[in-house]
């Protein structure tokens, strides 16, 4: 097991390198560092200011390899930055000059406070609904629920948010319709609405998916065996279908776990939650390459972490699998 994990970790190094190279190319193919400086400095910036800005951040160096002959070949923008990332130094924002490690540290907790409850509540609800739909499958309620799920899926999340905020701010007034304060237990009152909306907006697709997965499981021979043993339908679902379905669920769900830390763009924007959700998004728009790069770097580590976690959970949940 340990040997397996170590081998996987070695496989990850070239992937991270590839991801960073791809990001670099994608970003600087889209816009030269020059264009980026213009965006940051605004339409009134003079060429001299642009040049100075680029120089201060090292963006005036050759992009991939230094072939000017005046400096060592590795003194290029990409390689310098890879070197920095290899030391886990995330660098500073191009726009605000603030150390990014600090930005990410500050944003992680609010993001997690939003996504973790939403994720688990959503997961639990979807699984319960899906199990219930499998229980009454092929009936009228099942069909109606299918329609409802597709309807939930086709309504964009913005509409949920606007409706939800309107309801809370114009009718109920029970708790704030906007805002965020980290202050112990009462933080919850700010999270109630966004968490609920996140759950609702994800529910349709998840219920459909899980229902399909559980139905698939229902057709298996061992379900027939269990029923032949006299196990009640409810227990067949809760015990046999659920545990086997769980294994499929793990591949889908666990890989996305590390990404909870990245928050949710739309919800964080609408509710003023100071999370990491729109970090990447607004960095692409700003544009702030340093932030994009750091986000992608962390993102790829999280993704690979998710893969590893999936492997481990898989081995834990499915007795047939041993990691070698």
């Amino acid at each position, binding site marked *: 097991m340990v040997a397996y994990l170590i081998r996987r970790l070695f496989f990850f190094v070239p992937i991270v390198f590839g991801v960073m190279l791809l990001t670099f190319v994608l970003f600087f193919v*889209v*816009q030269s560092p020059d*264009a*980026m400086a*213009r*965006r940051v*400095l*605004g*339409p*009134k910036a*003079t*060429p*001299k*200011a642009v040049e*100075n*800005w680029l*120089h*201060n951040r090292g963006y005036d160096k050759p992009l991939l390899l230094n072939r000017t002959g005046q400096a060592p070949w590795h003194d290029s923008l990409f390689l310098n930055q890879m070197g920095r990332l290899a030391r886990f130094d995330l660098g500073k924002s191009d*726009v*605000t*000059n*603030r150390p990014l490690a*600090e*930005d990410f540290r*500050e*944003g992680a907790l609010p993001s997690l406070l939003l996504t973790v409850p939403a994720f688990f509540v959503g997961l639990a609800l979807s699984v319960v609904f899906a199990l*219930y739909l499998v*229980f009454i499958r092929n009936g009228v309620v099942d069909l109606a629920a299918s329609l409802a799920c597709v309807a939930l899926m086709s309504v964009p999340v913005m509409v949920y948010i606007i409706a939800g*905020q*309107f309801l*809370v*701010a*114009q*009718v*109920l*007034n*029970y*708790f*704030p*319709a*906007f*805002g*965020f*304060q980290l*202050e112990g237990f009462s933080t919850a*009152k*700010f999270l109630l609405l966004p968490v609920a909306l996140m759950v609702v907006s994800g529910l349709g697709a998840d219920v459909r998916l899980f229902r399909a997965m559980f139905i698939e499981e229902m057709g298996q021979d061992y379900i027939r065996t269990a029923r032949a043993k006299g196990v*009640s339908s*409810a*227990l067949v679902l809760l*015990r046999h279908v659920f545990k086997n379905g769980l294994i499929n669920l793990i591949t889908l769900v666990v890989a996305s776990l590390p990404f909870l830390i990245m928050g949710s763009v739309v919800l*964080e*924007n*609408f*509710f*003023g939650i*100071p*999370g990491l959700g*729109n970090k990447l998004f607004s960095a692409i728009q700003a*544009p702030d390459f340093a932030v994009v790069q750091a986000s992608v770097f962390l993102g790829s580590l999280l993704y690979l972490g998710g893969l590893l976690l999936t492997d481990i959970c898989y081995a834990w949940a499915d007795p047939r699998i041993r990691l070698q």
Partner: protein
Amino acid sequence: MPFRRHPRRPLFFAAAFRGLLLLSVLGVGGCSNSPHPEPLAEKSENGAPWKARYSALPEDPRSLDPQVTYDNVSRRIMEPVQECLLEYHPFKTDPYELRPCLLTQLPVRTEREGGGISYQCELKSGILFHDDPCFPGGKGRELEAKDVEFAFQRMADPKVECPVVSTLQDYIEGLGETFEAARKSGEFDYSKPLSGLKVTGRYTFEIRLKEAYPQLLYWLAMHFTSPVAREAVEYYDGKTHEGVARELFRFHPVATGPFRIAEWKRNTRIRLQRNPGYRTTAFPTEGWEAAQEGLLRPLAGRALPLVDEVSFTIFRESIPIFLLFRQGYLDGMGVGKDAFSSLITPSKDLSAKYLERGVTLHRDTEPSTYFMSINMEDPVLGPNKKLRQALSAAFNAQGYLDVFFNSVPIVAEQLLPPGIAGYQKDFRNPYAFNLEKAKALMVEAGYPGGRDASGKTLELTLDTNGGSADERLMAEFEQRQFEAIGIKVKVIENPFARLMEKMDQGSFQISAGSGWGADYPDPENFFFLYYSKNLPPTGKNHSRYKNPEFDRLFETMATMENSPEREQIARKLNMILSEDVPHLLTLHRSVFGLTQPWAPRVQSNPMLEGGLKYAVVDEALREKLRGDWNRKPLWPALLLAACVVSAGTFALNVYRRS
């Protein structure tokens, strides 16, 4: 798997009931729906109730370093924290007027022998910096002339990245040379004085210019020239922080303004607290409109600021702003497109619902002009003046404002916006929207019905800044305008930087969405956009307009002090541009703003970015109205609880039945 054969029903109901109680207590009971934290204090030093103002901000300021800050958002925080040498009078906007702030009086202009001009300045004595750990004992020291010198040195330091140094270096002595020298050596030497700024005494200094540049006074009312304490920069940007996390100087301004930053939670809020040592300025005793006499007279001469705290909440989406304003949790808001229809009646008044609440509507016009640039070097558009005039006459600017801006802004008839010297109130654009005239001009231009001699339809490209849904619709609108006179328009949506690049390179025909907001209220700041020595990439003459007559008049006007003669020249420049049409004018930006009954607006000078030191608030009225506006009905809680309980019961039954 052990399971209970007989689930105990009563237990479930007990739990549900308890949940219901909890919910009722949590929801309907004491839980406040305020998005704001408690104010910083309950009472101010003199025992009066604490007064706080609540405002909205679209994003975190990028930088609060006075020599760097250029964008509007940062300036809104900068303005109450950091004062400038001069400031705009809060009430005099037509024309705008400067008055001393940190200085004792407006700088005195003197001619130097051997050419060059000097301005003699004197700081008020007894002005203190904010109390801050960077000073010995944590007590703010007195402001001196050397702090102004340090600020000017910082402008010349390439590492600081002052955005206006390349403009000012043309006028202030030694600025450009010092900047270049420091770029070469990689290090700026702060021990060497800057030749353009000479400290002549503890409070006095002299600014030396290479040539006449009356606009310098406006620059002294901007933050780039605001004094900076060297201790603060060294303390916050120093290499060693003894292991303690410290903000950079650009996020921790140490200045002399009426407020200081008490709390900055990224992406959430910024709270400013009154600077107890502030004595620099007082409420003006004259200059307001007669209509405001009742409100402002009692305030005249009072010590500033008038509130104890200003809380900015950061909203990255505009919709919640409206909701919180309705709940009474914001003291003012701009009326964006989204909220417009619900607030403003067809006659541009506030709707009755809000009038009843005591809300007031304000209309603010910014000193700015928006237009579409025409490339004068384009082989089709450049030589064909009639065609440009036809385009101008084909564009329905009022319709554009009606669709996209709720008819709030003013249609631009000339390059200069209102309030700037040279603006002609009665001037009408000779090529304003007139479809018949446009069609006639097309004939004169050689394109009757949009077709050239060979019968081919004229095709033009329109470069836009692609992105939001609104921008798409605007592009489609513009396209339709020109199609009406038979021209086929191809829209190219560009990312912002690409559009800038195209405009710099001159590789466009018509570019939508150009505009210019005044750096300072002077005609020079607008007409230089069409000065032929100001071509891209170094300058901003994106239309690549070259007219010797225009250049000559501009050069004369630029260095003149404001006078009737100067206005005459400005008018001539206006006429030349109107006839030559190097741009299609659209609008002067203006917006509607709302204020709550407890926070009446005292000033509306757009150059002040809020003018928070003059702001007032009636705390008691707010408390009362907020209570009235946030009633909590009980029935939804009961309904929800009933739903939860019945769903639970149902699930239980299903389980038992199986």
